[in-house]
């Protein structure tokens, strides 16, 4: 236990690029088993082995390249179970790309990631069963009603017939959408769609929730109620939440820990209070963000970013 505490302190304060912790999670032997039944085998399988006892999210040297552009550059990062974790960073820093790898949408170019104890490459089906995801882009199905969107999610996530209806109604109620439940989503406002998506992503009580700028476009009241809802989910069910945001107030209110991404790397990680204190006694999180996402001229990170951008222009 003291070892673990020490390790976590080290992780918290140190900047990115350090020693990769040995990620140990289920998946490799799973994949070998899957390969056996031939072409039809992997299509229909849904297995349920127990997850290993690791952090909720573990990234080791996680990298994503788009051609020559390195969007995510050897990230090492762990998020313990039950934590609300904020991924911050300027536009194009690699937040969405990281989430897409963790949610199994994009395969990493290098490195490993485990979510809820399962490797995202070797056991993607196990990962998917345990996560919820709100993408950055508004993406509920406009040709369906709010209720139907939720019903589809409930069915695909295996929410039992007995509890389905009540869960959907509770979620609608909580997100203030009951009156609009049977209207087509294409007639919703942006904020209403966002709330519907949050309802959709939490309906099945996932172990890990990925929220890519969850409160974008929400009015101040709705935003606060979403924060409360997320804090509740986290407290009551121990759901681990990884969210990205450009809203420093959101990060401070919600996140126990944050990491600031810069050009695909973790520039710094720590508790918001620690990070502020490390810059100046009276610093705000905005200043922390500015400090780390626009590293001083000639700084190592800025340099690499610029070289890459130039390379991309020329290439």
């Amino acid at each position, binding site marked *: 236990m003291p070892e673990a505490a020490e390790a976590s302190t080290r992780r918290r304060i140190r900047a990115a690029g350090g020693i990769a912790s040995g990620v140990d999670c289920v998946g490799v032997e799973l994949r070998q088993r899957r390969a056996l039944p031939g072409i039809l085998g992997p*299509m229909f399988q849904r297995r349920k082995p127990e997850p290993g006892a690791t952090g909720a999210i573990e990234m080791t040297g996680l990298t994503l390249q788009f051609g020559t552009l390195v969007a995510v550059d050897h990230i090492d990062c762990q998020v313990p179970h039950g934590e609300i974790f904020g991924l911050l960073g300027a536009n194009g820093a690699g937040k969405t790309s990281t989430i897409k790898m963790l949610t199994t*949408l994009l395969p990493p170019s290098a490195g490993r990631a485990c979510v809820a104890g399962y490797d995202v490459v070797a056991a993607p089906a196990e990962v998917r069963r345990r996560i919820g995801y709100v993408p950055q882009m508004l993406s509920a199905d406009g040709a369906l009603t709010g209720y139907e969107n939720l019903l589809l999610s409930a069915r695909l*996530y295996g929410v039992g017939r007995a509890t389905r209806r009540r869960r959907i109604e509770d979620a609608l109620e909580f997100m203030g959408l009951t009156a609009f439940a049977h209207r087509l989503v294409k007639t919703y406002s942006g904020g209403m769609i966002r709330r519907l998506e949050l309802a959709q992503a939490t309906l099945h009580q996932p172990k890990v929730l990925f929220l890519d700028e969850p409160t974008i476009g929400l009015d101040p009241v709705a935003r606060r109620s979403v924060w409360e809802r997320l804090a509740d989910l986290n407290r009551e069910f121990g759901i681990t939440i990884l969210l990205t945001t450009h809203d420093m107030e959101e990060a401070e209110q919600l996140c126990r820990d944050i990491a600031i991404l810069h050009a695909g790397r973790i520039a710094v990680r720590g508790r918001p209070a620690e990070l502020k204190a490390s810059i100046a006694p009276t610093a705000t999180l905005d200043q922390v963000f500015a400090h780390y996402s626009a590293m001083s001229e000639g700084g190592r990170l800025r340099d690499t970013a610029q070289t890459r951008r130039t390379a991309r222009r020329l290439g």
Partner: protein
Amino acid sequence: MSAWVLDSFAIADVELRKLMRDPAELVSRAVQPLLWLLVFGQVLARVRAIDTGQLGYLAFMTPGILAQSVLFSAIFYGISVIWERDLGIVQKLLVSPASRASLIIGKAISADFRGIVQACVIYLIALLLRVPVRLEPAAVLGVLVVVTLGSAVFATFSLVIACAVKTRERFMGIGQVLTMPLFFASNAIYPLQIMPPWLRVIAQVNPLTYVVDALRQLMIQGGHSIYGLGWDCAVLTLVFLVLLGIGVRAYPHLVR
């Protein structure tokens, strides 16, 4: 019941709800087969240019036109899935625990529904044009089975193409390039026997040929299948499973 079956039905269910919200689209798809039978069929029947054995030309081509409209309505699934990808809907489905196979089978079931609607429309037109269609329940049921298989094959084919080309513009281009040859290089509107040998070879590897071949016996009085119903259905089932296997692997690439 198996999870993948439930998931397929969940996907099919929302697809059908969307379809039922826009019945105009469904009905408008009946116009094209109507024109083919009414104009093309009537004219060619009159000139007796094509030797169709003891069957009248209109009776000969009716199953071909049903197969054609199965093909044309199923091929639309590729573009719709690209559209849904652009809206972020496919990403959400891919993050859900539903197996990739159910995402595809769900679409195929919805295509089946479209195909069956087309079949009803064409039976109606055929009856009006006094085409000697078979109306015994077993034959009609057989037609529905073949239409279901054909729709599933072409919807899945279309999804696979969509995963390969990825953009709407490219799909539009390739869709045109593929559907017309699939139709003309088949036995839909002329028999295999009168084709030049090279075309016959293409027609024999074209799944549409097997749809038409089975429909010709099941739909028309005095119609005969060349390959036999069992063989036709076996070929279509096999093609569907192969396409499904490819689709399961290709589907995630749509969002990359």
